[in-house]
């Protein structure tokens, strides 16, 4: 449950259109039809005792504490499950009700440990509070009878405990697991007095629990409680902020004691997560104060020398002098920088400004290069804006949902739960993925179609879907002709109608049966509302941008744009990928996705920044690395990214970084890239600074500082100081000043300010005079580009081919408990769930190679090899293997290639031809020794 008394009306609000007036304890109150008596009472200022009711869950009516009397009705109905009716007269306080409630409380307390003073929930326990509310003064039954007071406590989960002795069997935890998270890991085992919360296994850690924390949040006692609360006690104040993990951007209450975080609790009023969380945001924040944090700037002459701790001033002066020296020797274009999608909008803005205005070139890029740059390109070309079309809540109106190359229950878990809830309500699901993700089949969820395509054939599948839609007359011609460029639409219709794009013709390419393609296309095209969600399985291909455009084509052709329940929805990887792109992190675009060659756009920035800007596009990150190897690129400033682990073809990346004369890394930890660095600026975590993040639904939210920066400077202050050392002054007293500058220069942000963010909570851009409170859904009346553009999306096979020598296709992904390169999550207890990356291989392929589950295997590609333990599973199809890249030791990117998307150079992480063999005895011994050494 929430600490510090967050109001809870007991049941969810009703969206009923009509108002119903009722009388509660003599007070008249009008509430929407469908509202519970309990909620109506709360809104009338009347508090009804409750234990099993909470507004995060559906009403249950089991605790019998919220009984009321209603004129004209027999008995004492539960106010949580009784809905208001016109003219209803309710009494919440009568002598009989008081007697009944005290009787109920006596029964609860007769089987509850009376250790309130030493209980971790002391001061924040609903049972304790209700005992006071009902005036409990005695327990007539005594404590000597049968009870659960010696029931064994389950401490197996690293983050919370389950103490059955304190359980009142209200089922809030079980219901939270079902209704909110959708995992169904908990149940009430037994009947009557024997009832107990159970996981179905011996303990939490061995169960299907995903540690989202919903059960802990729902618990009204100390039965389920965070270990940090047990250790540190209750918090004394709260600061609202945003999670720094994935692109869902969940709002959190940082519950604090002084400057120490006691726990993070999801904020129920946050529109991105509506009170839900995942194991990362809820629990895995301990990295922020991990002993590995670097708190002092470091410099060294050579990457083979030891680091020298220095003052900020010395580090800044050294870094600036190196940049100046290199530019004097090799030219202005010999330096560049990388912004971070883990940093705030304001910090990203400053880094690109430093590079454009301070370095004097456009050699700025961001980690979106290696994840969603094709989204930016493809959606800009087709729809006119480099962003998703919807808000997250839109999924509640979707009838058919296509998930392509995304695994939201692992990568975007809070949205994944929202999606699963809609599926349980009856929406139909189509999954397009080489791997059988949890969405394909899990409790109460089953995809109608799983198009299990061969890696690298997305575009062929999309074209085949389009072929069916057009040739079977399922397209929304009226929408397409009214809203889109008609000539392009006609060209596209002709193109996709060609026989070579039919499901029957593409079956041999994609491996997807034609009948499944036809069925899926009909299902999507005939839906009242069809929505497409996609992830890196779309973008990280040599045809990533083509596939993004193919998705936009499908949505436009079926009229699935511009209203709730539809749209094109990229699930962004890192928390601020959308924001970092918006803020001008691409080398060819100034902030707001405006090309650097536009003199009017440049002029606005030049006036504000008092510099003359380079009108030519700069180098992208892969181009910078190539230029480093040819000797024309010599220095790089990398804020909050780790290309030496996260980027493909690591031998190439390492060689390029080694060839540079000055690598400046700014990060929380000495990451893999820092091994190649000459200057290290200690970074600050999201808890140590103010700013904003923009999530996957274009939602700008406030990040709030809850503790001082461990190294003395927030990241934005580091960039300001670096710019000053270079001779370029930046004058900001607070990140809000930076946002004011952003609002003055970006047409989509003109209405954004910290004051408005405080008032509204969050804002979805565009936010300007036309949309002063933001834009939840885009392209409603017209596309941002005017008319939607259908692009011709010819399928082109990747150059990365499987052969006799490399017969398997390796694809990569993420797991729930780890995040990206793992720099944060590996420094938390989350590694208990995923201590190493493993290789998923189909039983058929494993058997052919003599590989058994758990064996150490060697994975070799044309680029390199690595060793992983085998997970023999039918999740992957024959011919496909799969791994993650959360641990540097596993070296997944030692085998990935430098093939990339044609439009953006986004790497083709998702397709690498490999061979897999059983590791030899010497290799096993070597790996075992390395693991022991670690």
């Amino acid at each position, binding site marked *: 449950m929430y600490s510090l008394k967050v109001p809870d009306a007991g049941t969810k609000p009703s969206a009923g259109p009509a108002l119903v007036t009722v009388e509660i304890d003599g007070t008249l109150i009008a509430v929407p039809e469908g509202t519970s008596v309990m909620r109506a009472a709360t809104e009338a200022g009347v508090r009804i005792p409750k234990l099993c009711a909470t507004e995060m869950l559906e009403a249950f009516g089991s605790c019998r504490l919220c009984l009321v009397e209603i004129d004209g009705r027999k008995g004492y109905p539960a106010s949580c499950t009784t809905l208001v009716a016109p003219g209803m007269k309710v009494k919440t306080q009568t002598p009989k009700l008081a007697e009944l409630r005290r009787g109920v409380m006596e029964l609860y307390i007769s089987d509850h440990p009376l250790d309130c003073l030493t209980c971790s929930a002391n001061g924040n326990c609903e049972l304790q509070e209700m005992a006071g509310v009902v005036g409990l003064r005695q327990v007539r039954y005594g404590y000597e009878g049968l009870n659960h007071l010696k029931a064994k406590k389950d401490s197996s989960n690293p983050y919370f405990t389950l103490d059955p002795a304190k359980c009142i069997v209200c089922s809030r935890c079980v219901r939270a697991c079902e209704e909110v998270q959708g995992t169904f890991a908990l149940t009430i085992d037994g009947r009557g007095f024997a009832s107990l919360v159970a996981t179905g296994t011996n303990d939490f850690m061995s169960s299907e629990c995903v540690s989202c924390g919903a059960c802990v949040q729902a618990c009204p006692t100390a039965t389920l409680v965070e270990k940090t609360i047990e250790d540190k006690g209750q918090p004394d104040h709260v600061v609202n902020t945003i999670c720094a993990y994935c692109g869902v951007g969940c709002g959190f209450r940082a519950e604090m004691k002084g400057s120490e975080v006691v726990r993070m609790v999801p904020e129920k009023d946050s529109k991105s997560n509506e009170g839900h969380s995942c194991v990362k945001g809820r629990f895995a924040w301990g990295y922020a104060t991990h002993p590995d944090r670097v708190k002092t700037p470091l410099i060294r002459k050579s990457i083979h020398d030891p680091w020298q701790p220095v003052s900020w001033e010395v580090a800044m002066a050294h870094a600036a002098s190196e940049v100046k020296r290199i530019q004097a020797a090799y030219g202005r*274009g010999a330096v560049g920088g990388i912004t971070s999608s883990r940093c705030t909008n304001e910090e990203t803005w400053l880094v690109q400004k430093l590079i454009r205005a301070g370095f004097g070139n*456009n*050699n700025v890029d961001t980690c979106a290069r290696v994840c969603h740059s094709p989204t930016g390109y493809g959606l800009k070309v087709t729809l006119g804006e480099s962003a998703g079309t919807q808000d997250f809540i839109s999924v509640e109106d979707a009838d058919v949902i296509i998930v392509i190359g995304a695994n939201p229950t692992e990568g975007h878990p809070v949205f994944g739960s929202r999606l699963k809830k809609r599926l349980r309500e009856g929406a139909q699901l189509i999954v397009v993925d080489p791997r059988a993700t949890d969405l394909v089949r899990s409790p109460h969820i089953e995809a109608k179609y799983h198009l299990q395509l061969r890696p690298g054939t997305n575009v062929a599948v999309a074209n085949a879907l389009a072929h069916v839609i057009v040739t079977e007359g399922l397209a929304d011609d009226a929408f397409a002709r009214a809203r889109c460029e008609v000539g392009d639409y006609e*060209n596209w219709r002709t*193109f996709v109608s060609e026989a070579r794009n039919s499901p029957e013709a593409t079956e041999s390419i994609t491996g997807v049966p034609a009948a499944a393609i036809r069925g899926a296309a009909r299902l999507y095209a005939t839906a009242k509302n069809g929505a497409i969600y996609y992830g890196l399985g779309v973008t990280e291909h*040599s045809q990533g*941008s*083509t596939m993004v455009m193919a998705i936009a084509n499908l949505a436009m052709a079926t009229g699935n744009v511009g209203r709730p329940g539809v749209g094109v929805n990229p699930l962004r990887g890192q928390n601020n990928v959308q924001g970092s792109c918006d803020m001008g992190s691409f*080398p*060819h675009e100034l902030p707001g996705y405006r*090309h650097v*060659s536009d*003199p009017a756009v*440049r*002029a606005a920035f*030049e006036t504000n920044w008092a510099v*003359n*800007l*380079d*009108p*030519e*596009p*700069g*180098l*992208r990150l892969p*181009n910078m690395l*190539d*230029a480093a*190897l*040819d000797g*024309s690129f010599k220095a790089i400033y990398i804020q909050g990214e780790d290309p030496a682990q996260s980027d493909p073809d690591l031998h190439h990346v390492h060689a390029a970084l080694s060839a540079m004369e000055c690598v400046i890394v700014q990060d929380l930890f000495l990451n893999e890239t820092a091994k190649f660095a000459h200057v290290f600026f200690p970074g600050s975590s999201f808890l140590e600074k103010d700013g904003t993040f923009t999530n996957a639904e274009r939602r700008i939210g406030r990040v709030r500082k809850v503790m001082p920066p461990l190294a003395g400077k927030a990241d934005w202050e580091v960039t300001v100081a670096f710019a000053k050392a270079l001779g370029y002054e930046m004058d900001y007293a607070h990140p809000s000043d930076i946002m004011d500058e952003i609002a003055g220069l970006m047409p989509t942000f003109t209405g954004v300010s910290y004051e408005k963010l405080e008032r509204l909570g969050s804002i979805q851009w565009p936010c300007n005079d036309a949309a002063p409170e933001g834009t939840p859904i885009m392209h409603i009346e017209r596309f941002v580009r005017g008319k939607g553009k259908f692009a*011709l*999306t*010819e399928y*082109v096979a990747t*150059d990365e081919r499987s052969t006799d020598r490399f017969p398997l296709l390796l694809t990569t992904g993420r797991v729930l408990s780890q995040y990206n390169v793992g720099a944060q999550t590996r420094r938390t207890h989350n590694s208990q769930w995923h201590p190493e990356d493993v290789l998923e291989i189909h039983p058929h392929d494993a058997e052919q190679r003599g590989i058994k589950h758990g064996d150490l295997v060697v994975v070799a590609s044309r680029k390199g090899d690595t060793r992983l333990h085998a997970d023999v599973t039918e999740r992957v199809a024959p011919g496909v293997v799969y791994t993650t890249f959360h641990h540097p030791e596993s070296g997944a990117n030692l085998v990935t290639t*430098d093939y*990339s998307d*044609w*439009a953006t*150079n986004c790497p083709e992480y998702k397709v690498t031809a490999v061979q897999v063999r059983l590791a030899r005895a010497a290799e096993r011994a070597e790996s075992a020794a390395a693991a022991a050494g670690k």
Partner: protein
Amino acid sequence: MNTDKLVRMANQIGAFFATEPDHAVAVESVTSHIRRMWEPRMRAGLLAHVAETGGAGLSPLVLEAVTANRERLASLTPRNPT
């Protein structure tokens, strides 16, 4: 810059626009994409490759685009007056 990589990237761009039914639009699209997305030293590398080898390895569409628009690809956008 690595010439092989530049050739491969250019051919990928050509492969996307090759489906365009209007050939003139395809040529312009290839040219415009390279002009707007590639940093000058990358464009110079591609042009040098064409000058030295006649465009070895380039697809006909890309070679046509580069050859027909050599000056545009080589030119630099003028800075705004200070």
